[in-house]
């Protein structure tokens, strides 16, 4: 399916992909899609990532398994730790320097 040209508005939505039948269950992959228009209509940024997997049982029960991005989470935690560490070092040594 061909994408349209960049749209005006920011979009953040969850899209269900094609379901797969495995045995008696149906597995539906879910994607989080973020669309950010840039510079008016002269550019855009599209960010798609796996959100979760929904399992629909024979009796129509739904179970959602979230997809965790462990690498991204570790990166963010490390960068926040570095920032906090820098602030602590700055605050501690600034206090000592001023005495």
């Amino acid at each position, binding site marked *: *399916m061909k994408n*349209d040209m960049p749209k005006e508005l920011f979009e953040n939505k969850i899209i269900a992909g094609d379901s797969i039948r495995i045995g008696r269950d149906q597995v539906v992959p879910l994607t989080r899609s973020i669309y950010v228009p840039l510079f008016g209509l002269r*550019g855009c940024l599209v960010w*798609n990532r796996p959100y979760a997997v929904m399992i629909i049982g024979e009796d129509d029960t739904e179970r959602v398994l979230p997809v965790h991005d462990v690498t991204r989470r570790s990166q963010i935690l490390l*960068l926040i730790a570095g920032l906090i560490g820098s602030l602590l070092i700055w605050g501690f040594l600034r206090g000592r320097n001023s005495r």
Partner: protein
Amino acid sequence: MAKKEVAPLSEVEIPEPGKSLEMTEDVIGKLLDTSGSSVVYGRPIKQGDVTLIPAAEVIAGVGFGSGFLFGQSSEDDDRSMPLAGGAGRTFSRPVAVVIISPEGVRIEPVRDRTKVLLAALTAGGFMAATLLRMINSKRALKELDGK
């Protein structure tokens, strides 16, 4: 060494005026197609009773511009030609693998040790730079007091 033959200009396909914008739209549309939600989950891979579905994060950035070129090749010729151009880039990174087996469905995350190590080095660099800066400023203050 044989000379590489270059096609004469008359054989090169030059888009008609007004068509360049359509071509740019077409190319940008194709680029956005590569980052669509349908490519986040790959084709299921079946091995016996187990089915694997790879999941990846896909990011695409696109920019384009258009305008008019005014020109006059002769006294009788006064026309403008619309021009358009664009560029884009797509990134993708594996995030997890969905494993479907007779025991049930589970999701195994993909751990990229290289990216985590780079983030750790960046964080360490920030802290080391802050520490060095504070030590240097302390030394400078001591020298000023000593004078």
